């Protein structure tokens, strides 16, 4: 019985960690997959969203759920402005220019947040209902992890439906596969990019807010976790919701188990695993043809 509990709690922990990665990274996979844009500033949108959510809760007295929605909306709006003004000018540009633009944006985001709200870590106090433990019959486990897993699954299902079953989802998938062909079919690519970018950034904001319990929230957030977001997207493969979902779970559980049994070598293993996988399948587990 003890062994069962041990494995169960480990799995739950790993899946919860995976969910955080999934929620934050799915937007990045869409923007990179659809627009082929190396968007290193994605973590910045997660931070902005997180800060909006924290401010909404601590200073404007909003509930957690309402704050999350506000975070989504405001970050999506900001991202539309940035996309129209800056990103759209570099869709045809070389990778180096895209890397430069997004690294520049990250620095601007970090500096402005530090200037406005100071360098301190932003405390995000979960509502009482989400704190503490919950009894799942076989194991008592951290309530918030269970909530996170549920939210992640819900989000994944919702996104899957949005992509596989709706008109706009079909358009996005078509554009990911062959942008020129989609354009020639009369799909308004520019509008599609803006919508995807806004949705992607909004999701990142949700990820920032929901993940704050685990990953904390401070101005350095975008650079600290940049490598992890990129790994999930690269391993998962570009442009596919399912790809990122499985990749995030795989890496979440792998990282969790390794930290428990091999605390020192854990992260090295993740990097090694990513290298081997990308050599075997450059387009990632579920990606389409390597771009």
């Amino acid at each position, binding site marked *: 019985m003890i062994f069962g509990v041990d494995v169960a709690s480990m799995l739950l922990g790993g899946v919860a960690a995976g969910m955080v990665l999934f929620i934050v990274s799915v937007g990045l996979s869409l923007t990179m997959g659809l627009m082929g844009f190396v968007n290193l500033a994605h973590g910045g949108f997660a931070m902005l969203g997180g800060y909006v959510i924290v401010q909404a809760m601590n200073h404007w007295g909003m509930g957690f759920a309402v704050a999350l929605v506000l975070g989504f909306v405001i970050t999506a709006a900001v991202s539309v402005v940035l996309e129209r003004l800056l990103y759209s000018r*570099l869709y045809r540009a070389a*990778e180096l220019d895209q890397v*430069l633009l997004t690294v*520049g944006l990250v620095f*601007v985001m970090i500096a402005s947040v530090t200037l406005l709200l100071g360098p301190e870590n932003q405390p995000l106090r979960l509502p009482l209902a989400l704190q503490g433990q919950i009894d799942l019959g076989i194991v008592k486990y951290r309530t918030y992890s269970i909530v996170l897993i549920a939210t992640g699954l819900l989000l994944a299902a919702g996104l899957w439906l949005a992509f596989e079953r709706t008109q706009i989802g079909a358009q996005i998938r078509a554009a990911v596969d062959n942008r020129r062909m989609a354009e020639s079919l009369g799909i308004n690519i520019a509008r599609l990019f803006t919508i995807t970018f806004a949705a992607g950034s909004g999701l990142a904001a949700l990820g920032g807010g929901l993940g704050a319990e685990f990953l904390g929230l401070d101005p350095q957030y975008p650079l600290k976790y940049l490598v992890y977001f990129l*790994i999930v997207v690269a391993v998962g493969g570009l442009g596919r919701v399912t790809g990122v979902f499985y990749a995030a779970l795989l890496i979440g559980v792998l990282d969790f188990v390794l930290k428990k049994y091999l605390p020192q070598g854990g992260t090295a293993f993740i990097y090694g695993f990513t290298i081997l996988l990308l050599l075997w399948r450059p387009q990632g587990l579920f990606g389409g043809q390597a*771009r």
Partner: protein
Amino acid sequence: MTPAPPSGVLNRPAALVLAGRHRIRLWETVPWTLAIALYVAFPKYLAFGTELLITILFALSLDLVLGYAGIVTLGHAAFFGAGAYTVGILAKQGLWSEPITGLLLAAAMAAAVGLGSGLVLLRTRGLTLLMLTLCTMALLEEAANLAHVYTGGFDGLDSVPITPLFGRFEFNPLYPTTQYLYVLAVLFACFAFVRTLVYSPFGQSLTGIRENLLRMRAVGAPVRTRLVLCYTLSAAIAGIAGGIWAQANAYVNLGTLGLDRAATVLIILALGGHGRLYGAFIGAAAYMSLSHFLSKVYPTGWQLGLGLLLVVIALFANNGILGVVETLAHTLRRRRTGTPASPPGLR
């Protein structure tokens, strides 16, 4: 094809330009005179100067792969760190602490890492290659942390014993006069090599790979071998930069392998202009003085300023400061002489 008299064809304008492209121009002596001037006029800024020269050397090695072969990498610090730790560990374990030969060992180790990773990674391109270089560097950083018995882990190796240069010139930590001239000499040697390489047929074929990989294969070029060779040479130079950094600072730590250093050198090259040899000089000078003097005045503001500068460079300057200078000179010449002469072929 009837053979025209040999000399006749060779003094055609285009042929002369190509034949003279490698000749040293007057303004190319400017960076070196400035470096000497800094040594003479600002003895107190030699620590900053040494760090600047090493950064130029590191940016130069990246320019070889990024500017000339078109390989975008976020993991170039892997080789810088490999070189630094080679020097650090050998000296700290009392195996080898002579500076010049130490650099050769650093170059050899970094070249080995470059060859090993190049053979494997250069099969891929674009985002995948970017990720692979990033992960390789991160893997090395973790390995260095794990082997803390040798590498000193997070705290790093301190007071690395380096024997005096040529047995006479001591490395003084407070007034790094020897270090500055030593780094300047090594930078000059490496720069001469890279400059020759870039103007050689091999360098020309690299620009061919950057401009059109498909066509280079169609003209029969063994593209992968060329890229791996270029990657290894660049790694060796980055290793020298790392090695000399360890010697000049008598200190090595995980920062030499960090994403921060790899991203900074990429920014520096983009700022200065890649594929232009002197982009490394201008980029490093601009970035380092901005980061050094501006951050003293207004620490957080400096980061905001740098971010905005990068956004502007990405959107408007097509190839950094040197690119802007070149287009300006080009339009000026066009307005003065009216002939659409193409900008100087200094690739």
